[in-house]
């Protein structure tokens, strides 16, 4: 294979890398060129999406280090789209004093996501994880004027690097057992080998690192601080892009690599393997996430705990396993990511207007901007799982897949727990909506510097939010469009 072919197949990553450098250059040349920087970044991301569409259906690079399949292409597009929306969100964010650097790091994180999605090889997975994580640590701590941002960055970094160490240790065990780093090859090796305790140690350690990335309890402790302290676009990207890619890679690892050690999480017939581990993580996440979210008074913190709970729901599909389970997980996490980018977009606008993101800052938002209030209602109700929004279909899909798997409704306990969790979650989402719609007068002081939401303000961000809200409604009413894509892309 010559270098030209290589460049063709890796063109999306290459385009993003070049864009990142270009944005960095523009940022260095002029500190005031925030508009140009984000324009260049969006153009680069759009080009990369185009490049992904031009890729062949199937290809393998470097003996499986990088692969191109319909699945990888679909999720590369989704990750790039999420990055695209995040860049628009980051426009004129007060926190980003150095827009060029910020956007360049965001684009580097995006490359990490593309690598994560586009590989079926343990080493590449680890490199992708690290590239994403390192960029995200910097993005979290980027607001140098805010001590919370620094605290969040440090916490995220300490937890994250420990989790990475666990993963790497686990991966080394897996490599030691199977003698290969390709996921498919590992699957074949494990199928012929007897079960060994060492293997389970390896599996659990690998899962610890990934559970950290998806913020599943009990590895979620960084999430509330990172979501609350980080600049809003960083939090949005951590909650969306990073999560989607992590679920894709987690799904690949457990369903392809560890396929022979699936085990069973059925209530009366637990069999050792990774699925009981994931089931335990899911159950813990649902319970802890929802219960702790009940008492939050800061919207970003609330979204963080709800993210923990959503990670729990999403794991249900993987626990169920199989093609159906994976597609349910992928559908849910995709829809969730777009919803959360939108929700953080609203938080960013409210924060700019009122100078904070506590519940009281949202009071009577409807009277200031009906459009943004309406969008937030759509995002939160979709998270709560109410029809006709995408979250409702996603939950139905996930829970029905989970109940179908295995004989005798073995996962009923997990489904009941998840339904109970989403019942609790409606309460805290409604509290936010109550603030937005029911209150007649704003409770918090509106800082005069911020400017009002009612003005033309940032037209582009409004359009983006409307588009995202429209997408959430559209995928709720016509889920076929996305589900068909996902199912068709799964082998």
């Amino acid at each position, binding site marked *: 294979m010559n270098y030209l072919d290589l460049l063709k197949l890796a063109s999306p990553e290459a385009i993003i890398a070049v864009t990142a450098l270009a944005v960095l250059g523009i940022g260095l040349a002029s500190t005031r060129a925030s508009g140009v920087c984000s324009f260049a970044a969006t153009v680069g991301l759009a080009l990369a999406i185009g490049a992904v569409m031009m890729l062949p259906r199937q290809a393998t690079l470097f003996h499986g280090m990088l692969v191109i399949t319909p699945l990888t292409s679909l999720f590369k597009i989704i990750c790039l789209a999420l990055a695209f929306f995040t860049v628009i969100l980051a426009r004129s964010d007060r926190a980003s004093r150095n827009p060029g650097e910020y956007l360049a790091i965001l684009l580097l994180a995006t490359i990490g996501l593309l690598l994560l999605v586009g590989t079926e090889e343990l080493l590449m997975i680890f490199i992708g994880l690290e590239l994403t994580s390192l960029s995200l640590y910097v993005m979290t701590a980027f607001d140098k004027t805010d001590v919370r941002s620094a605290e969040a960055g440090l916490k995220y970094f300490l937890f994250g690097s420990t989790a990475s160490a666990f993963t790497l240790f686990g991966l080394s065990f897996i490599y030691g057992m199977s003698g290969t780093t390709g996921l498919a090859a590992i699957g074949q090796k494990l199928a012929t080998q007897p079960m060994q305790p060492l293997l389970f140690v390896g599996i659990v350690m690998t899962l610890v690192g990934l559970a950290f990335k998806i913020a599943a309890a009990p590895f979620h402790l960084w999430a509330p601080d990172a979501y609350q302290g980080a600049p809003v676009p960083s939090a949005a990207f951590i909650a969306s892009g990073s999560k989607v890619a992590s679920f894709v890679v987690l799904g690949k690892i457990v369903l392809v690599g560890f396929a022979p050690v699936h085990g069973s999480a059925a209530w009366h017939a637990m069999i050792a393997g990774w699925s009981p581990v994931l089931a335990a993580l899911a159950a813990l996440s649902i319970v802890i996430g929802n219960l702790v979210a009940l008492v939050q008074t800061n919207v970003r913190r609330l979204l963080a705990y709800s993210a923990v709970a959503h990670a729990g729901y999403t794991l249900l599909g993987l626990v169920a396993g199989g093609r159906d389970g994976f597609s349910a997980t992928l559908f849910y996490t995709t829809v969730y990511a777009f919803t959360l980018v939108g929700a953080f977009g609203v938080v960013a606008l409210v924060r700019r207007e009122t100078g904070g993101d506590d519940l009281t800052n949202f009071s009577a938002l409807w009277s200031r901007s009906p459009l943004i209030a309406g969008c937030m209602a759509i995002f939160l109700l979709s998270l709560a799982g109410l029809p006709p929004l995408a979250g409702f279909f996603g939950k139905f899909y996930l829970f*029905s897949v989970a109940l179908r798997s295995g004989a005798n409704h073995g996962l009923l306990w997990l489904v009941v727990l998840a*339904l109970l969790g989403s019942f609790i979650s409606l309460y805290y989402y409604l509290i936010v909506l109550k603030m937005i719609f029911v209150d007649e007068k704003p409770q918090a002081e509106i800082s005069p510097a911020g400017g009002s939401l009612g003005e033309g303000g940032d037209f582009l961000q409004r359009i983006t939010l409307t588009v995202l809200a429209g997408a959430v409604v559209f995928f709720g009413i016509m889920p076929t469009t996305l589900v068909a894509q996902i199912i068709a892309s799964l082998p």
Partner: protein
Amino acid sequence: MIAWTIYITFAGAVLLLFMPRIFARWIALATTAAGLVTSLIAFFQISIVDLATFKTIVRVPWVPMLGMNYHLAVDGISLTMAFVTGLVAVASVLFSWDVEHRPSEFFFWLLLVVGGSYGVFLSADLFLLFLFYELVIVPKYFLIAIWGSTNKEYGAMKLTLYSFFGGALVFIGIIAAYVTAGSLDLQQLAQFQFTPQLQSWAFPVLFIGFAVLAGIWPLHTWAPTGHVAAPTAGSMLLAGIVMKLGSYAGLRVAMNLFPQGFQAWRVWIAVLAVIGIVYAAGVALRQRDLKFVIGYSSVSHMGFVLLGFATANVLGVSGAVLQMFSHGVIGALLFAVAGRMVYRRTHTRDLNTLSDMGLSRALPFAAFSFVIASAASMGIPGFSGFAAEITILIGAWKAYPLAVWITGTGMVLVAAFTLRALKKSFFGESASEVRTQEGRVLVDADWKEQQNITVRITMAEKCGACLLMFATLGVGLYPKLLLDRVMPAVGAMRFLK
């Protein structure tokens, strides 16, 4: 044809968001009236023979991978329910003619409730039915929390969480049926033989989930607080339509899909229903707030519906459907009088305060409507309440004679609390002559807003009240109109075979 009720209503709701607020009530009225006319035309156009089975009217693949279809069907039961939805919807818009506060939003949420209800009554796909069923939850929250009165945020949250809790139970039942039978089509599921073991746990989960919305004792407590907190149109919709969603879905889904589970559990439904009838009537007797009296009377009347279901014979279940129609109309009328005609003018619902006002002379039309509604609610022959309850009791006599005896005493209580409310609210001893001229109500000197309110009953109120009174009287005098359509459809249900 009847499917257009759904589309018209949702189109009207979306239109409201983009039109100036001065048109809001007119758009809402036009939309609900169009829905009523559509359901009326369908009611008389579809031949009675066709209504005996759950006949498909629209069927479009929706999510083929999961076997979901956009599938609507109609039979006598769903047509009757669509009809009462249309009636109550028009009346509730007429009774909220004076909503000045955020009117576009108000009618938007109102139309979502109406549209979702049409959807539930016409769905023949389990997922679609559940989608419409859950769609109604959030609009109710906003209707109550923004435009309500008395403890509105508490009432709204309680009602929403109860509904959503019921929804979660329903969710479990639905996916259990779905993954076992591999289909979401109600017509196919009605043919599928579920194992007795599955039925024995799935039926109660599903039925209780639905029955939360129907106000089954002891999960009824959302109903009185919710009704009281809601604005007039909100309580009309709640009592008139939303509670019927639960009972209708319980009949259409839980009972029809899991007949053996139903047979095993129906005695418990009868027990809960009878307790509900007597208990709620007893509680209503002790209330001081007029709306609480009516709220508990709703629970009591919905108890009759559940008792009718538990009889498991054609007569009893048909009576239950008739009662759903009847209580939809009567409950809406009672709340309209209490919430709009009385409370809006006097700013009090306290029975003792009201009894000093002599409202029968101040508001003769309100008094007249309330007498009619009370008579219908007590089950005086000639009104729909009588026709429905007597049918249920005859049906119940065959199944549970003891239940009829207990319910009989319950009906005395119903008459007692209704008469008490009637006497105290309209025919109390008035303190002075000055207060009791027609068109003058003087209370609460501190209440500034009163000066701006027309005390005379407005045209819109008269139209709305007349619509509902004619409906209860018409069905009361000629119940055959509904029974002809309902009984064959009930007879076709699986649990009766």
